[in-house]
């Protein structure tokens, strides 16, 4: 299964973190720092694998991809295929690109819940459930609509009721 998904920028600032097992936050932050220190020392055009057992415990592997100012990192165990995980990063980034039209770091910084909604459609409890970015987009749009609806009702009703109570 997939253990963790991390997105961080080239300064080491985390932009998205997801752990599919419970990890205390301090350990999360430490792992992120360790991962970054390994990643930033790697040259361009080398392989996308990093030995992760020292950071995430036995039977853990790590693949990453470097896009512009961001590192996308997937940590997983021997039940996943390394190349498939690289493809999955590609799927994730393509979906983000569709969603935000030419995705850049700021989109990821400012769309916390949407990022999670997208990721949750792809990976569920550490398992890959969806790999088609159109399907993912469909579900995410539905969810966004649903949230907007409920919020709209919320605002209107509240302001109306408040007006009346005066």
């Amino acid at each position, binding site marked *: 299964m997939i253990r963790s998904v991390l997105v961080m920028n080239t300064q080491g600032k985390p*932009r998205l973190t997801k752990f599919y097992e419970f990890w205390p936050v301090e350990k999360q932050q430490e792992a992120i720092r360790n991962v970054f220190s390994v990643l930033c020392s790697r040259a361009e055009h*080398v392989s996308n694998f990093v030995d992760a057992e020292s950071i995430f415990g036995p039977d853990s592997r790590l693949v990453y991809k470097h896009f512009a100012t961001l590192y996308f990192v997937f940590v997983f165990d021997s039940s996943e295929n*390394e190349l498939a995980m690289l493809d999955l990063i590609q799927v994730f980034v393509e979906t983000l690109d569709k969603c935000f039209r030419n995705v850049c770091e700021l989109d990821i910084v400012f769309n916390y819940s949407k990022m999670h909604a997208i990721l949750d459609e792809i990976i569920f409890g550490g398992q*890959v459930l969806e790999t088609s970015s159109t399907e993912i987009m469909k579900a995410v749009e*539905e969810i966004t609509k649903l949230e907007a*609806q409920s919020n709209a009702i*919320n*605002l209107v009703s509240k302001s109306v009721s408040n007006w009346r109570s005066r």
Partner: protein
Amino acid sequence: MAGSSIMENLFQRTLEDIIKGMRLQLIGESAFISKAVEEIRREIKSTDPHTKSTALQKLCYLSAIHGLDISWAAFHAVELMSSSRFSHKSVGYHAAALSFHDATPVLLLTTNQLRKDLSSPNPFEASLALQTLSRIATVDLARDLTPEIFSLLSSGRVFVRKKAIAVVLRVFDKYPDAVRVCFKRLVENLESSDPQIVSAVLGVFCELASRDPRSYLPLAPEFYRVLVDCKNNWVLIKVLKIFAKLAPLEPRLAKRIVEPICEIMRVTGAKSVMFECVRTLLTSLGDHDSGVKLAVSKVKELLLDEDPNLRYLGLQALSVAAAKHLWAVLENKEPVIKSLSDEDSNIRVESLCLVMAMVSESNVTEISGVLVNYALKSDPSFCNEILSSVLATCSRNVYEIVVDFDWYVSLLGEMARIPNCQQGEEIERQLIDIGMRVKDARLQLVRVARDLLIDPALLGNVCLHRILCAAAWVAGEYIEFAGNLFELMDALLQPRTNLLPASIRAVYIHSALKVLVFCLDCYLMQNEDGNLVVGQSDLFIGKRGSVAPESATCQSSTLEQHEDLTFNPRNTTESPEDHRVFENNADTTVTQGPAITHESMVGLLDRIELVLGPLTANQDVEVLDRACNILAFVQLVKAELIDNATQEVNTVDKKDTQVSAIITLMRDAFVTDLGPVSVSAQGRVAVPNGLDLKENLDDLSAICGDIELPSSSSFGIGGPQFGTSSDTTSIGLLKNEESGPVNEATSLLEHRKRHGLYYLPSEKNEIVQHDYPPANDPRSNSNSDEAAELAKLTEKSLVLKKKANQTKPRPVVVKLDDGDVVPLPISIKKPESRDDSLSGAIKDILLGSTTKPSSSQSNPSDKSSSKRKEKKKLVAADIPSQMKENLGDAEAPSLENPGSSSKDHDHVKERRQRGKEKIVEGEGHDQKARKKKSSHRHGKHKTRQKASSPLNVVSQTPEIPDFLL
């Protein structure tokens, strides 16, 4: 209230505000966060759900991105989960998934809400609940919600059903009894026409099978169908993973799947699927030659690919294959060796492992030599990677593959001089270990040690101190092999030794004492008649037993050695300035080296006094004690020598003097051979009556920190050789040194009295002993390995084996010495040609030239290639016959089949009945199920088969066993 809520609403900062504020803040991130949290703590208590949800959302953000602990907000998350508005609900669920763990107390409150949302008509609400459940499900939650999940497993919406399938994994994990309820439906989903569903189910089975593969063997037909029919790459990868787990358990199954997997590998365009096939074939189907051959050919493609990822994975696949199919590595040695100089460190390390896998007795010299040279030029971390793997490979199984120890010892010396070398401890261990195990290597060992010791530059490198320590010990212990004693003494006493840590300096001083004793002994011998020498040697024989011949030869050949060995290296390799520096007050030694004259002896003694004199005020007790010992000895000897010098005519009488007696005694003591010690040796010492080893003695250290160790001397391995007490008063004691520990303890007592000091009595000897001679884990390992193997062969006589171990304390050394001689004539011809090509290839790559790429293949006497050819031939010729065999095999077991299948059948029936009961139980009587928790594990296993078997019974009962054939 309404007013306040509208104010809150209007003025509350949203998540976006927080993010923006964080980017613009001037007060520092942590100050900003704590201010924001303060604000959130206020807002989250609001009764207005919108305010609350915004606050919680901000908190989640801070937790995920900035590592804030939000466990205190757990209750608010539960509150929001029960909100009727989707946006609030989703924030609540997100917070729960983010921060809850098994011990979160409010988890108990979520059960009903989860149940409600799981059965919600809105698929997105059900999806939210499932999502959170997949992270937070506990035993209780899993048990209580099993019915809901069971019904979702057949939900009409794929969107929900696939998530329900995935959540089953966590539920089974926490509450194995859920298997009885859900397993059947899970398996049914395998038949679904929707690839997403199939993919989800296989994902679950892949996880389950990786924990306990045997339970899922009965599902093999289902998986096989997927393997053959499915075209989806994700699904194929999962099913391959499952078969990789199942195939080793059932050879008949393995035989069946090899062909389909090979077919997929040939056809597929996806590298990921192809690599998964390769990995499956190499890890789990290694016995099927056709598959392995195809896989290796694919690996070759990977190794030659542009993409570094594929090269890396190719190397990984090769190292999987290396254990069983070394030929696969040899076949690909060129790309492997080329990878050693890849810019990617992953690839370098992987290929280093493979190169080391190729090392054998016959090519170890070339490969190691080239690698060590390469280490010189590589970056520090890879350099040490190389060195440690060379060290590990060569010392494997007590230096199994090392034939030429002279070479290996010199290699160790070379390694020590590599600037980035961090392997000091391992080199130290091996230098000493070889000294003790391999007699024939000692001469070279001492030469290497001398080269290390006389180089003052090395003393400045902290990483080398451990190696120098070993060198000093070796030089002292095997001093009889030394070329020039005076030069060694100079090295041991050189001024820069003050750069060494005290413990190592103590070793230097102790070695100096050994050298001095040996010098004096030689000096005395030299001045005696030939007869007397012989007599003396006889004496040695008497005392030293097995070691005697060696000592005798060395005694008599010392002089020749001096002439042969010392001058050549001195004039050629070492620049004389190196040591002249330290020899200003004994310039005679350089020229007169071997001939130990009276003057040179006196000079030597003077110098020891001069150099070590200041150390009697040293802070460290180790150094202090040793310096005192050696100085006292020097004074004693000097008095006598100078006496003799005045009446020069009587030199012949020297041997009668007290001093010569002492010297001889000390020489005898030092000359005893130290052997390697088994780690289990301590265990064989019977614990004396009344000694409680487990008593806690912590309090003691406070009371008597200074006097704690005297008793430990009784565990000394070789008390005698450390009889260094030099007091004039202890001469008598020295005479019966053989009785060791007691004497030492008393002489030390006296020593202490004399100095009025009560420093750590625990003779440094003791400590040094622990530092040095017993460092030989591998040896003991090999002992136990041997024992284990032998025990396997003859399972009855464990006891006998152990005794055998006891009775031969150093069998390995003997074996190694034999190995020195025997294999050479036999194995010299064939393997060497291969090695040449291999190491030549390494050289080519590492040194940058790329000539003669295929010389290895064209070499007719090349062992590996001939092997390969053989293999190819074998395979080519055997394919038809193998097929026949297969057919035969397939038929043969089918005869057994009826019996086993009917047995299965019975089981199945029985299980089916029980299974049905259980399902009812599972749904209705949770209490009962809870009672059965204790037998979960067992139950799990059984029930999985149970649940799956009905299906099989219905559709293909007769096929299961057939298929497995």
